[in-house]
């Protein structure tokens, strides 16, 4: 049996993993030079996480994690790119990653070779992201136990909170390249989610939840999370089936952002070039939506907790108007897609042999200066029946992004004559292009969610399938 060091009577704290950009850059440069590699770049991350889950007043699981990962790209003598990823940041691991990337470069795509972003050394926006010291895990446990107790106490029918968690993370990201680009970001974040299950005698169980994000556990709006989870769950207790048919629907901010996110290939230059987007190269300038709709990608919005200051290629994150006055204005780009379109990278790239492109955080609402559609919409003073879509499920299965169609289960309410009643079970189906052209207007103020900023959105004529 091997001997272990003498026990330390002090409780062990997990030491946050750290990245040293200078040291890592120097090590990689040396290893690259000794392998005859002239051109390389690297994305790295490390994080330290702790999280807890509870079950009816007891700890269910407590977790800690220390993770590190790097992705190395190298350009070979023919200018082709290869890549390798590893969680091994030792010298041996870096050397193996470089060798792997060099081997993979023999299979690089000569028709589309990524290059360094021309903006990889451009100034970054300053982000207001306070760093928080992690709390001891037993403190997290006490906090979550209390949150569970408070939520269970909100209604006799709420019997359990089967999905819950309180988590905190300290993380670092960096991007380096052989031309001297050096990006480094340090971040702390925290999150809580509470998903309650309620059941009344002789009726089906119902469930709903809420989530909150912050820069540290002290920042989290736990009371708001409990309130929202309770309100949503209780509001679904009195349910009834809905008749299949076509309805005017009111999407919650979360549901509409989910829908737009699932069809974000509409705005994605990578998907356009690959032929799997509903948009074409020449779609810019076309009418995609009603003339009062704006969609902006803005990863720098202060509501975007944990925003990245730069993308996987080191390009600064920046706001980008995607749809303005219903007109498609811009696509999201990586370095390679931007080059293909003759524009500048937009800060939405990953890092890979084939670089992915993705949206950051949407701002959706009325185009400034437009009429914003119908004014003063209020579901409780509307004459006809309305379906309020509170949350969508199974987007991975029910969305055909390249075809435009969707068919999704949802939780929501039928509002008739000012009275709201939960819908037992139903799906909503449609085509995203038709949805964007059938927006009637907006209800209420825009709300900040983890995925973006959006008000309630009214859409006419969607197909609802119920069990009545």
């Amino acid at each position, binding site marked *: 049996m091997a001997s272990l060091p003498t026990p*330390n009577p002090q409780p062990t704290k997990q030491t946050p993993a750290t990245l040293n950009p200078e040291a890592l850059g120097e090590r990689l440069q040396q290893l690259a030079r000794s392998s005859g590699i002239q051109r390389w770049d690297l994305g790295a991350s490390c994080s330290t996480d702790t999280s807890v889950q509870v079950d009816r007043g007891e700890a269910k*699981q407590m977790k800690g994690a220390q993770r590190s990962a790097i992705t190395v790209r190298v350009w070979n003598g023919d200018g082709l790119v290869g890549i390798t990823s590893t*969680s*091994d940041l030792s010298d*041996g691991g870096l050397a193996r990653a470089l060798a792997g990337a060099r081997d993979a470069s023999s*299979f690089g795509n000569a028709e589309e070779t990524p290059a360094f972003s021309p903006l990889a050394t451009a100034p970054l926006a300053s982000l207001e992201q306070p760093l928080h010291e992690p709390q001891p895990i*037993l403190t997290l446990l006490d906090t979550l136990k209390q949150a569970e107790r408070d939520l269970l106490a909100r209604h006799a029918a709420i019997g359990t909170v089967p999905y819950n968690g309180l988590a905190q993370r300290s993380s670092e990201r960096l991007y380096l390249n052989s031309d001297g680009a050096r990006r480094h970001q340090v971040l702390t974040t925290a999150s809580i989610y509470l998903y309650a299950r309620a059941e009344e005698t002789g009726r089906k169980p119902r469930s709903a939840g809420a989530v909150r994000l912050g820069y540290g556990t002290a920042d989290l709006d736990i009371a708001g999370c409990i309130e929202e989870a309770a309100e949503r769950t209780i509001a679904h207790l009195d349910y009834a089936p809905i008749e299949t048919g076509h309805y005017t629907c009111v999407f919650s901010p979360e549901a509409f952002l989910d829908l737009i996110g699932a069809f974000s290939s509409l705005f994605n230059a990578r998907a356009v070039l690959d032929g799997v987007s509903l948009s074409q190269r020449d779609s810019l300038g076309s009418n995609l939506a009603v003339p009062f709709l704006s969609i902006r990608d803005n990863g720098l919005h202060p509501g975007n907790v944990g925003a990245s200051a730069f993308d996987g290629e080191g390009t600064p994150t920046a706001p980008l108007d995607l749809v303005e006055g219903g007109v498609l204005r811009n696509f999201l780009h990586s370095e390679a897609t931007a080059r293909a379109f003759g524009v500048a990278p937009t800060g939405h790239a990953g890092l890979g042999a084939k670089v992915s492109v993705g949206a950051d955080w949407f701002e959706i609402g009325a185009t400034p200066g437009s009429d914003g559609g119908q004014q003063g919409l209020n579901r409780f003073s509307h004459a006809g029946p309305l379906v309020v879509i509170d949350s969508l499920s199974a987007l991975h299965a029910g969305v055909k992004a390249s075809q435009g169609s969707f068919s999704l*289960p949802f939780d929501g309410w039928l509002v008739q004559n000012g009275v709201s009643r939960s819908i037992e079970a139903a799906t909503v*189906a449609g085509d995203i292009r038709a949805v964007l052209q059938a927006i009637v207007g907006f209800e209420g103020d825009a709300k900040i969610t983890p995925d973006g900023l959006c008000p309630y959105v009214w859409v006419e004529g969607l*197909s609802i399938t119920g069990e009545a």
Partner: protein
Amino acid sequence: MPAVGAIADGFDHTWRPRLDSLLAAGRGAGADLVEIFLERTDHIGVLAEQDTITSVSPAFGMGAGIRVFCGERDGFVSTNDLSDRGLLQALEQALGMLGLTRTSTPALGFEGLGALADFAGAKAHWLNGCPSLTEATLKLLEGTARLAHHGRHLQARRASYARDWQSVLVAASDGTFAQDIRLHQSLGLNVLAADGEHRAGLGRRYGTSGRPDDLRQWDADASAQDVCASVGTMLYADYVEAGQMPAVLANRFGGVIFHEACGHLLETTQVERGTTPFADKVGERIAHEAVTAIDEGLTDGAFGSLSMDDEGMEPQRTVLIENGVLKRFLSDRAGQRRTGHERTGSGRRQSHAFAAASRMRNTFIAAGPHTPDALIASVDKGLYCKSMGGGSVGPTGQFNFAVEEGYLIENGQLTKPVKGATLIGEAKEVMPRISMCANDLELAAGFCGSVSGSIFVTVGQPHIKVDSITVGGR
């Protein structure tokens, strides 16, 4: 201290002294059980689009997950640092989560690790036996070329290949000491067809475990024909009319309905959470008597097969439902401690970063006495689901899954193709409505995402008939 990478390169009996020490320290601190999971991985992903290789993505990694139980509670810590210091720090953190502190007290009740159960020895050649990158890229390009040959109006053609190799070592303070090597290979073909306003996208996945030669044996032409025939049909399909109707679900990936609708509810993780309606139904009828359902990890080459689970236990053939009666739940260490259901070799996890949980392996409804045609002939008006997309199950048992390729059944005959269908329902209500099972059981590879990450699984069934189900559509 040796370099991290050097340590990771060998999982074998030489780890015994270090693991013994860690486990003894954990038990000495007062833990009921300590488990250490070590992992080393080697992955290759290759993508061909149209007639070009557009991505080759190698990745390798390593790590450890340390879990400490005290009563029904547990603490879990994962780390990429396999040095002595890194593992000790992870153990101490996991102990600390349960209010335990390492002391100099000798461990009571820990007799040391047992003999190494070596499931890896016969598999040492697997990684080198896999196709080279050159072979893989040529095979994928053959796939996209065959798609071009057989398809019409194809706007995008993709073939993808993933090879996942994993070496694991599991040690626990109950004496468990076992190592294994796993190899999973999967192939995907995806197409998008477009003709004017008509668009249809479709894909197929093929996957096996423990067969290094698998990609070489792949019949790219047959797969391409299959995909192109389906997408050609669906390109001009109308949207399905929504409503309640009988449905016949084809074999192979049709088994996702049982996986989502019922299988997840028979995992002890759901019993622990109180989210399964079947928790107290063992011995009771929960499905139509036509239904017998099995979960096992034994079928040679199947995607969900294992030599041992991620807790070092050999898998079983577990009969979940027999003639409609609930027989057993799938259970892991935590499930056994918290629910009393005996372990079934079903403790699984995506990687060291996840604590194992009770998860499905190869899960299927057993074959019945009917022919597939008899099922279709028994329906006056309904839906035939030839190919399924993905699905999910919610916290109160509602399930949903997309129909990728569907046809109307009218007067006992398949008529026109329809698209946009989603099947929704609740397990408790649908299981008694599976009234007929055909005699053509087949399995299909898939991935399942849940509490312990994304894992390799097999779903399967013969053709089955559901007497009534809600079909979402337009």
